[in-house]
């Protein structure tokens, strides 16, 4: 099978999507990230691995957390980081995506970190870059957000050690969520026996069962016995048309409250990819409560991005 993410030796050349990555590569990324997590705890939080390499952050869509954590990760690997805010650059003057990339490539890029509102944009770029250049998808449209999916997997493995007996519930706006898709593929590849998606019919993609998940419309039922609860953000900016009556109505049925969380396992962890809408998909008492691992997720995100960059740049 021709996988655009892998080189001829089957090694990771670009990270475009978790879908289609073999279990060994997912495990390699998670194991490597564990070693990098230690680096971020010591006096000099830097290793010389990517010294002399240039990482271009190409963000065609606004993002603070993802862009910043990629920047920190690249700097901790000793790479030079160039941030391009495309909204105020050449694209507004009419330059095509591939021309932008060709120009940056002429400036000796090694890694492109790409976020784009069109699904598939990072794939297009990956097909046109030189063999020594690598593309990392930092979120494309509704399609995929593989480093977020990987950091969610890392977080679950960190707290639960092993996927083989886990029930993971993903709650909310699955339809517009690239995070959910990436995470579902990762969980099923790593052998989690039960992945549930919980949400109203209007916010679930048609045929979502085909991804190997169980669908619930009743949140209480879906949370029962869960080991990990992943809340998704209600993506107002991606919603065209009336998919929901109101945020209050959503909160009533699908917001995570302490009493709904009590139905999950007593040691369940609560995750959220951020940014959170407090009082909509998650209550403050849960977001700041003892089950929440939302802030550790951010810290782990740096180690995971260090792992991905150092693996692709070495292949």
């Amino acid at each position, binding site marked *: 099978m021709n996988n655009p993410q892998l080189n001829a030796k089957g090694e990771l050349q670009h990270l475009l999507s978790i879908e289609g990555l073999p279990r060994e590569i997912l495990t390699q990324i998670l194991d490597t990230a564990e070693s990098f997590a230690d680096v971020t705890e*010591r*006096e000099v939080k830097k290793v010389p691995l990517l010294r002399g390499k240039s990482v271009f952050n190409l963000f065609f869509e606004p993002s603070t957390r993802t862009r910043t954590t990629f920047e920190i990760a690249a700097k901790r690997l000793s790479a030079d980081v160039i941030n391009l805010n495309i909204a105020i650059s050449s694209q507004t003057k009419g330059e095509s995506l591939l021309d932008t990339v060709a120009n940056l490539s002429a400036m000796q890029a090694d890694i492109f970190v790409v976020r784009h509102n069109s699904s598939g944009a990072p794939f297009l770029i990956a097909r046109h870059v030189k063999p020594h250049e690598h593309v990392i998808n930092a979120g494309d449209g509704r399609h995929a957000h593989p480093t977020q999916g990987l950091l969610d997997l890392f977080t679950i493995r960190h707290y639960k050690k092993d996927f083989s007996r886990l029930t993971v519930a993903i709650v909310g706006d699955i339809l517009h969520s690239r995070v959910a898709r990436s995470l579902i593929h990762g969980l099923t590849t790593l052998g989690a026996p039960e992945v549930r998606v919980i949400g109203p019919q209007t916010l679930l993609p048609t045929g979502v069962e085909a991804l190997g998940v169980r669908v619930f419309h009743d949140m209480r039922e879906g949370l029962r016995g869960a080991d990990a609860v992943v809340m998704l953000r209600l993506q107002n900016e991606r919603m065209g048309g009336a998919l929901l009556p109101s945020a209050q109505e959503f909160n009533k049925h699908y917001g995570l409250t302490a009493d709904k969380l009590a139905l999950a396992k007593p040691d369940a962890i609560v995750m959220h990819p951020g940014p959170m809408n407090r009082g909509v998909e998650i209550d403050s008492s849960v977001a700041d409560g003892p089950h929440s691992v939302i802030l550790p997720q951010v810290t782990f995100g740096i180690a995971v991005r260090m792992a991905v960059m150092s693996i692709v740049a070495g292949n």
Partner: protein
Amino acid sequence: MTRLPDAEKLCQQLAAELKPRLGPKSAMVGLYTGGAWLAERLHQLLDMKSPLGLMDIAFYRDDYAARGLKHDPKRTKIPFDVNGAELLLVDDVLYSGRTVRAAMNELFDYGRPASISLVVLADRGGRQLPICPQYCGAELEVPAGMRLRLKRDEAGKLELAMEKQGE
């Protein structure tokens, strides 16, 4: 094939040599994988007070550009303050000296040790960097294309082995 010395005996010999040199600031760091086994053994034989440090130099290698990142980097754990410590850096076999160079760079990212001494079970020559061991179990001649490495069996017994490169 030349007979290789008994790794267990070399280990005892190194411990005896190190014993009178240990001070209150002494601490030990072993390099994965063989050096970590040797360090675990020496640390125990010497009954050292400070906990043992273990290091994987994968993120400091000088051949990353050519070979990429290896698949299973172990976690470096230095559970003591490196600042001011008199470090014993332990590896199984000393060859080009590049691993030791990488290890010293990594150690300095943890702090500024008072000193670093190199302890190896075997020195096979062939240095490419100005590095020499302070404590060495044995000097061995190894034919080109062959690799000398430490093995550990299920019972924990250490043994030197010679094999073709790449095996």
